[in-house]
């Protein structure tokens, strides 16, 4: 019984055949923006639901010269982002960064960086449930038909019912979009705050859903329009206060509980953006305290 001669793993873990299969799926996805391309998702050495789709897409497109950034909840230092970044350092030995503008590939879970992405960059989204119609219709056989027939009435009815019941649309993240006037697409569970950033982005956006075995894409400069009604136009979240550390306005903020007496502070969800602003002399009202704490 010899267990010492285990095969070594290929560059970026996946074997080259698998990478070619994934690249074919990616090319098809780019050719049909917003369409979910089935692919033979592999088991990855991290659990399903933890970014295996994004990791497979990244592994398939990653080259030795790439610079990789990984974020989760907008931050480079959340545990799962740290783990995925470490994975690619280990299996691909690529350069990594936390700087949005230095990265050629950014793998993300739940956020789009605040800084505008530029041509040549690729944003890889980790997607749990790729099907925007899934919670309206649980059957894949049905939802594929609905996409084929461009039958999206059910989604509009859902949004309408929200308005009828609550006075506004009660979807705050994974807010459905229409891509290039054809496919309704799930932007992954990013807050709807980030939806406008997808529209005509200069960067290539790739979406990988490992457990559900789907890849989809938004090529650069593609129309991505959040679903809405003329009398209830799409709106993003707004925050009353700027970031407490860097003073940024019009960015997505995390709420941090300060004490057990209801104390709260709001700070940038995008840590790189926040640190960049702080380094350039921007200060929020709690910035001094933060430095004192360090």
């Amino acid at each position: 019984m010899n267990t010492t001669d285990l095969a070594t793993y290929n560059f970026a873990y996946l074997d080259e055949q698998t990478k070619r299969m994934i690249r074919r799926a990616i090319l098809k996805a780019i050719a049909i923006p917003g369409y979910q391309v089935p692919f033979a998702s592999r088991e990855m050495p991290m659990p399903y639901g933890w970014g295996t789709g994004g990791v497979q897409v990244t592994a398939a497109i990653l080259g030795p010269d790439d610079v990789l950034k990984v974020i989760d909840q907008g931050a480079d230092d959340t545990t799962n982002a740290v783990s995925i970044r470490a994975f690619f350092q280990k299996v691909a030995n690529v350069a990594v960064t936390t700087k949005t503008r230095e990265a050629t590939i950014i793998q993300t879970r739940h956020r789009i960086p605040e800084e505008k992405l530029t041509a040549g960059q690729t944003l890889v989204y980790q997607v749990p449930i790729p099907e925007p119609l899934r919670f309206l219709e649980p059957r894949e056989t049905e939802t594929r038909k609905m996409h084929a027939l461009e039958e999206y009435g059910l989604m509009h009815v859902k949004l309408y019912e929200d308005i009828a019941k609550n006075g506004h649309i009660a979807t705050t993240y994974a807010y459905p979009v229409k891509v290039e006037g054809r496919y309704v697409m799930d932007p992954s569970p990013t807050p709807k705050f980030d939806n406008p950033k997808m529209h005509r982005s200069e960067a290539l956006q790739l979406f990988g859903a490992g457990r559900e075995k789907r890849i989809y894409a938004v090529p650069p400069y593609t129309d991505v329009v959040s679903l809405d009604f003329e009398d209830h136009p799409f709106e993003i979240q707004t925050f009353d206060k700027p970031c407490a550390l860097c003073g940024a306005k019009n960015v997505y903020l995390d709420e941090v509980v300060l004490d057990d007496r209801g104390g709260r502070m709001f700070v940038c969800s995008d840590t790189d953006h926040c640190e960049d602003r702080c380094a350039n002399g921007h200060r929020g009202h709690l910035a001094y305290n933060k430095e004192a704490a360090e």
Partner: protein
Amino acid sequence: MYVAVKGGEAAISNAHRLLADRRRGDRSLPAIGIEQIVAQLGLAVDRVMAEASLYDRALAALAIRQSRGDMIEAIFILRAYRTTLPRFGYSLPVETGAMLIERRVSATYKDLPGGQLLGPTFDYTHRLLDPSLLGDEAIDAGLEREEGGEPIMRVSDILAGEGLVEDDGSLPDGHVAGDITREPLEFPMARDLRLQALARGDEGFLLALGYSTQRGYARTHPFVGEVRIGEVEVELDMPELGFAVSLGRIQVTECQMIAQFKGSAKNPPQFTRGYGLVFGQSERKAMAMSLVDRALRAEEFGEDIVAPAQDEEFVISHSDNVQATGFVEHLKLPHYVDFQAELDLVRRMRREYEAAQNVGTELPEAAE
């Protein structure tokens, strides 16, 4: 005061160090060896091989040790290794009729060619804790039957002789068996793919579904035509040589479940079959698989689809425990960005609700 949540890297490294420590446990005890796991926890090894779809006892045992005995974790580790292996080709169908049999029982015939062979079974043991296993008492070797007995024919072949049971399923000419680990799943599935998915499906999930069919949710009146456990030869066709060569033997468990069928316009009344085939010795899994396979054939037989076990998309989409555990456990990952969006929404709806309540309480006053 707030300090940014830094140090994920150090935290992970420390957590893994602690995991390694806990895995090793009390250092005054010898470490458990891979050979010991293979030899003494063989059924655990079999389950890991079956649900990881990789027949390698040593690697499965390594995975079990690495996972501290967490079976799904071990299955996961082994699968993540399997998926990186290149495909050289696909073996010929194994001939389970030629199995070197260790156990074979039939519930449909009292005696039959080849006889009933109980083999190494827990059946008929009394489940009393056995203090003698606390030590290392000498254990007698098992008895072996003499070689060269009569061939052990399959029960399905006995019934087929009378034309009372359906044939082995037929697939369209030129049908090449699929590979669910290389092609994306699509519904509806052909039976070959469905059986592949069931073969690596979670034992507990299939057990519960099979059980549900016995309790009236898509009842099929099943009988165990036969369960057989033993070794079969795996052969690979070599185009260069023009004939098949043997790659070796593997142990499998096969179950042929015989179920009733009243007949239809197309088919006469006859027995139908559900099929289970699993790596290693795993009778529970093979039996559950065969019950679920039969239930999933409802549409083929024009039966009403009324129960979860008959719903292919439901069963196959949720039978894979590596997928299931990953997605369930991902809920512990941070979701604070989305939660922030929901907080904002709930606060807003709450303000609107309270505003509406206030209007409601003021109105009666206005009427006074």
